């Protein structure tokens, strides 16, 4: 979230912290995904939070890319 780091707000800071922690383990922001599906793919039904986490988890480790360093 671009606006998440606007100064002065503890809750915004907390959101950025949560988003960072999630992304560290390979989970992008769920709200953003839902917003994206609603805006760009109106006909499609977005995955639920649980489906989203399951899908991202599976993708993170099945890929051919090396996701981490030594």
């Amino acid at each position, binding site marked *: 979230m671009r606006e998440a780091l606007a100064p002065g707000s503890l809750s915004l800071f907390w959101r950025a912290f949560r988003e960072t922690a999630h992304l560290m383990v390979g989970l992008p922001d769920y709200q953003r995904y839902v917003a994206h599906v609603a805006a760009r793919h109106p006909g499609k039904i977005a995955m639920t939070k649980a489906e989203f986490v399951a899908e991202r988890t599976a993708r993170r480790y099945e890929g051919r*890319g090396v*996701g981490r360093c030594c």
Partner: protein
Amino acid sequence: MAIVGAAAFAMLAFTRGEPVNAAWMVAAALCTYSVAYRFYSKFIATQVLRLDAARITPAVRLEDGLDYVPTNRFVLFGHHFAAIAGAGPLVGPVLAAQMGYLPGTLWILGGVVVAGAVQDFVILTFSTRRDGRSLGDIIRSEMGAAAGVVASIGIVMIVIILLAVLGLVVIKALTGSPWGTFTVMATIPIAALMGLYGRFLRPGRVGEISLIGIALLLFAILYGRTVAETPTLAALFTFKGETLALMLMFYGFVAAVLPVWLLLAPRDYLSTFLKIGTIVALAVGIVIIMPDLKMPAVTRFIDGSGPVFSGNLFPFLFITIACGSVSGFHALVCSGTTPKMLENESQARFIGYGGMLTESAVAIMALIAASVIDPGLYFAMNSPAALIGTTADHAAEVISSWGFTIGGDTLSAAAHDIGETTLLSRSGGAPTFAVGMANILAGAIGGRGMLAYWYHFGILFEALFILTTIDAGTRVARFMIQDLAGMAVPAFRDTGSWGANIAATALTVAGWGTILYQGVVDPLGGINTLWPLFGIANQMLAALALTLASVVLCKMKRERYAWVTALPTLWLLICTLTAGWAKLFHPNPSIGFLAHAQKFSDAAAAGQILTPANGMAQMNRIIFNDRIDATLCAIFMGVVIATALFGITAIRRALQSPVKTSREVGFEGLEVGHA
């Protein structure tokens, strides 16, 4: 800033005979980083790469809410840093401390500024300009299919050797340590519990699951002491290195074929959060305590006779410390998920260059941790039993004769303080780092009574992310092997086929398992043999990535600035090839693999048995292992040389062409089809 930095360096370099405070090292590092970031990375951003804030990144153009997501740069920095920071920057500097803290510090700081951070920054930018494609893909498209295959082989091999070395680090820390073994084993049911909870009870609650897991882990550390102090329980968790190696191989195989949500993903949460938390805690600890460095600036072992790793300062220091100065592995990470999330191309400087500087700071902290403990204890922990024996008194005598005076009772007391029976020959960096960290953190919280808990926390945290890497790495190597083998036998490529998956996984585990087992039975402690091989592999990959970067710069008709990547390439080529040559052909058996094989086969021919072999079969095994190591080394050198030649050809062709020939995608306004 530059003046403060210069003063700090002078303090580090010219103080002799009295302990220097770690504050000077921290100051020298921070000043170097800020000057380099402010000036050199800006030069690269504006002159060399010409980053363009108006150019649309793949995250924006291909946004799908999943892989391609424009992400705030601070959030992305956290993601990127978590991906590049691992065991590497903690182990290498600890081993390099045998030469004193100064050579390591200079290489970490110098290397990161002109090589490591440059590599990360440039590869991240190039990948971003190619829709976030992988290093192998970019090599294929810019340098040709043959170069792509060579690179793929090199990448599979480095993953396999990495897994073997990391496995060895864990085993060295856990051998004969019931407390450590218990806590590390406890992570398996804890992770499985978290996995089941997150799958069926509270789906998707990552934060909640992680907090539960961390609470259980802390309980396991506390209870570990009871295990270690109860003889019947301790016996259940006390293993020899060989047994641990077999268990690790079995574990690696099973873990890699289980569903990821059960074991891998939840443990990844634990290891990632513990890693970041510990790094932050250690940084705060160092700043609060500002410990004195007890290790001399330079030791006599720069002559190559050191017990931790053999070989001269040049080239071996430069391959011992890879992560922290320059790590080829990062080129894989920088062409992985990060480029798909860059909100704006101009942020590649902060993420790529800045991220690597931060990792370098972790390496400096590891060096500080290794330097704050008594040098005598350092050498007792890191020298092989073949040199210092297996009793505290004998070890103290040998190490004192090297000029690092220490008493046997001091060594025993140090082991007792951290809740272990012995600390001798716990090579591999992790235990030394854990002792140093325990000393620093116990100084801040808890005092001596907490030492043992901090130590086992340190061991657990390293073992945790090493096991995660072994699990994930085995999967990655399996896919790569399936890809490569699929070129010959197409059926192998079918990742939906259980037969192909099991076969490729078994092949991967057999690959790292063989090297690992050989490291465990190695008379010189394994790390001594394998870490240089890993270093050569990692620097080989960096040379590969930087060669690619130089080729791309020439193809962009930016050859005026190609020196930015060509000079570090040249340096890495010199280091890897000299080190590789020495590992192959050096007449000293403690350095050259072939000389070592020769020594053992001569003895075998004469009917003699040399330690540590206790039989002719083991003699033959050692000879066979030496030849495997030599072959690996030769292949790494072959990959480096082949890539350099491909690079030179591609550069010459690019220079002859009057126009830009690099294959980028997605200039602003150009709409490339998206899903």
